[in-house]
C-alpha cells in the first residue's frame, strides 16, 4: 500500500517537475517563420510593444531584473529565451502559460513578430530565415478597410469590410472577423467570431450592460482573423454605447487614509478646535505671569512714593 503511494507521489512529482520545466511547442507551430524581414523599423515598434506589454514582468533585456514569479519569467537576452525557434516564440506569446498571459487577443500576429524582432536584437548569433512561401501578407485582398457602425434598433455593432481584389474595391465576403472591447487588462471578445456575408457585412450582438467610461464611450477593436490572407487589417472605433461609469479614485475624496489636504472635515475641525482651545488657555496663563510681573512693578512704585 505504502509503496503504491510512494510510487504515485513520485509520478506526480516527476510530471510536475516536467511541466514546470518544459513548455511543449507543437512541431508545426515551432517551424513557423515570420513573413517579413526584421529591420530597424520592426525592432523599433517591437521595442515599444515590449515596453508596454512585457517589461513589467520580463524586465530590461540583459539586466536580469525580472519580477519574482513562479516559474520566473526568463530574461529576454537569456539562453533560455533565445534557444526558442521563431515559431516557438510566436506560439508561446499567442498561447501564454500562467502566470505568463496569452497575447492572442491583445497583439496581432504581425505585432507579435515585431516583438520577436526586438527580442532577437539581443542575440548576436541570430540569423533570420523568412517565410518565403507565404510571402508578405495580403494575398486574398489588399488595402483592406473595416468600417464599424452602431445599429441602435437591434443593439448591434455592424462591421463592413472591403478591400482591393483584382484591382477593384470589393466587399470582402466569407472572412472570419472578431470584435473586441478594450478593457483595463487586455481585450474582451464581444459576441463571437462571425463570417462576413456577401456584402462584406457582419453583425455582433452588443451587451446592454458593458461599462464604458464616464460618458459611456467604449473603445472597439475590429479584426480580421486571417492575417496571412488580409494583412494586419484592424479598426479602432470609439462609440458611446456602454453604460456611463464613473469610478472615483479611492484618494479623490476626503478620507482617513488620504493626504493631509484631504483630511475629513470633522477631524480637521475637532483637532483644530481642541488645539486652539487648550493653547488659548496656555497663552492666557502666560499673559497672567506678565500680569503678576506688572502688579509687582506697581507695588514697587507705591512703596517708593
Amino acid at each position: 500500500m505504502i509503496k503504491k503511494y510512494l510510487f504515485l507521489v513520485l509520478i506526480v512529482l516527476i510530471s510536475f517537475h516536467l511541466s514546470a520545466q518544459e513548455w511543449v511547442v507543437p512541431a508545426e507551430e515551432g517551424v513557423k517563420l515570420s513573413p517579413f524581414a526584421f529591420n530597424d523599423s520592426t525592432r523599433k515598434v517591437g521595442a515599444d510593444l515590449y515596453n508596454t506589454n512585457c517589461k513589467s514582468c520580463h524586465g530590461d533585456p540583459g539586466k536580469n531584473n525580472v519580477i519574482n514569479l513562479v516559474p520566473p519569467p526568463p530574461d529576454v537576452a537569456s539562453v533560455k529565451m533565445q534557444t526558442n525557434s521563431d515559431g516557438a516564440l510566436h506560439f508561446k506569446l499567442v498561447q501564454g502559460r500562467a502566470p505568463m498571459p496569452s497575447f492572442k487577443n491583445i497583439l496581432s500576429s504581425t505585432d507579435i513578430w515585431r516583438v520577436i524582432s526586438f527580442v532577437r536584437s539581443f542575440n548576436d548569433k541570430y540569423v533570420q530565415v523568412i517565410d518565403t512561401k507565404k510571402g508578405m501578407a495580403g494575398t486574398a485582398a489588399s488595402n483592406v478597410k473595416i468600417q464599424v457602425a452602431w445599429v441602435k434598433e437591434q443593439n448591434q455593432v455592424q462591421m463592413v469590410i472591403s478591400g482591393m481584389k483584382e484591382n477593384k474595391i470589393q466587399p470582402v465576403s466569407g472572412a472570419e472577423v472578431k470584435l473586441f472591447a478594450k478593457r483595463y487588462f487586455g481585450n474582451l471578445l464581444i459576441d463571437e467570431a462571425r463570417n462576413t456575408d456577401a456584402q462584406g457585412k457582419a453583425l455582433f450582438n452588443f451587451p446592454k450592460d458593458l461599462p464604458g467610461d464616464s460618458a459611456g464611450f467604449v473603445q472597439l477593436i475590429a479584426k480580421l482573423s486571417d492575417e496571412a490572407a488580409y494583412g494586419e487589417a484592424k479598426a479602432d472605433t470609439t462609440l458611446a454605447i456602454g453604460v456611463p461609469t464613473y469610478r472615483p479614485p479611492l484618494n479623490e475624496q476626503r478620507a482617513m487614509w488620504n493626504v493631509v489636504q484631504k483630511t475629513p472635515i470633522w477631524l480637521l475641525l475637532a483637532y483644530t478646535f481642541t488645539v486652539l482651545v487648550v493653547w488659548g488657555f496656555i497663552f492666557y496663563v502666560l499673559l497672567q505671569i506678565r500680569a503678576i510681573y506688572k502688579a509687582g512693578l506697581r507695588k514697587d512704585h507705591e512703596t517708593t512714593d
Partner: protein
Amino acid sequence: MASEVNTGFLLDKRLDSIATDILRPVGISKGFLVWMGFLLVSLSGCIYAYYIQWDKGLIVTGLRDYVSWGMYIANFIFFVATSLVGMLISSVLGLMGFKWVKPIARIAEIIAVAFAAVAGLVIVSDMGRPERLPYVFMYGRIQSPILWDVTVVTTYLVLSTLLYFIPLIPDLAISKGRMGHTPKWLQSTYEVLSVNWSHTPQQYKILLKSVRILLIVIIPTAFAIHTVTSWLLAVTLRPGWDSSIFGPYFLTGAFVAGSAAVVIMMYFVRTNYKLDKYLTLYHFDMMGKLLVLVSLVYLYFNINEFLVPAFKLKTADAIHLKELFVGEYASMFWSVQLLGLIFPIILLLFKFFRKPLPMFIISVVVLIAAWFKRYLIVVPTQQNPFLPKQYVPDAWMVYQPTVIETAITMGTILLAVIIITVLFKLFPVIPIWEMAEEQCENDHKSQE
C-alpha cells in the same frame, strides 16, 4: 485650593522656620555633586551608545521587520504613563479638596515634567533617521494618531511645566532673602524667576486663577495623552492591541506607575532632606491607600483585557495569550502581574506596609514591574503577526534587545533622574507658602 489667600501668614514667625527647613537642602552640596557626577558619567556612556546608533542606524538594535517597536516604544509608554501622576495628584485630588496632597503636589509635578520631557526623546531613539524629525511637522497627517500623540505630549509638557512653575513663584520670592548658603547665580536665577512677586493680594488672585485654569485644562489633556498613546496600538487589528478598553487600561495603569514613582520620591525627600515634618506617616498612609485604589482599578481592567479574549479564544488571540500565560513570556508576565499588582494590593491593605520604608520597597518593585508590563504589551504582539513569518533570517524571528539598545534606554531613565535631581536640589520641593498658610488657617480654626 482656596479662592482667597489669607496673606497673614507672611507676618507669622512660623513662616521663618518652615522656610528654613525646606530651604536647607537647596543648593549645591557635595553629595549632589558626587551624585550628579555619577549620573553624568553614566549618561555619557549611554550617549556614546546613541552615537553608534545614529551612525549605523537601527541595525545595531534587536529591532527588525517583525518587532519594529520593541524596547524603545515600551519605554516610551512607560514614560508617558509615569508622567500622568502630576495630573492625578494636583488636579483630581487637589480639586476635590484633599488637603494632604499639598506637600506632595510639587513632587508629582516634577515627575510629570521630567518624564513628559524625556518621553519625546524616547520616541526619537526609536527613529532610524532622526534627522527627519521635522518631517512630522512638515508632512504630518492630522489623520494619524502619531501626530495627535506629538501634539498632546507637547501640550502636556507645557501645562505641567506651568503647573510646576506658577505655584513656585511665591516660594522663590520668599526664598530670595534666605539663600545665603547658596551660590550667587542661583540667587539671581531666583530673582529673575520670581517675576517681581511682592505678595500683593492682587498677585495671589491672579496666581490662584491661573493655577485653577491649569488644573482643569490639564485633566482632559492628561487623559488625551495616554489614551492617544494607547490608540497608537489599539487602532490596529493585532491580537493583544485590538481592544476597545485600551485607553482606560493604559490610563489606570499609568496611575499605578506614577503613584509608585511619587512614593519613591517622597521617601527620598523625607529621609535625605530630613523633611519628615512635612511628609509625615499620615501622607505615606494616604499614598498607600491611593496606590491600593488605583491598583484595584487597574486589576479590574487587566481582568477585562485578558478574560474576554481568553473566553472567545480567536485564533490569533489564542496564540498571543498562550505566549503570555504559559509560553515564552510566561515568567515575565506572571512576575509582573503578581509582584506589580496582586501582592502590592494585598500588602498595602495592612497598615504596617503603609509605613515609609515598606512602601518605598513595594513602590520600587511596582515601578520596575510597570516598565516590564509595557514591554509585555508591545513585544509579544509584534512577534506574532497575522501572516506567517517566512523567507527571513532566523535572527528576525525572535526579538532580543541588544546592549546598545538597553544602554540607550538606560540613558533616557538617567536623563529623567537628572532632571528630577536638578529640580529637587535647586528649588524648594515642598511649597513653603502653602504650608505656612495652612498652619495659620489651622490655628484660626482652633482659636474660634
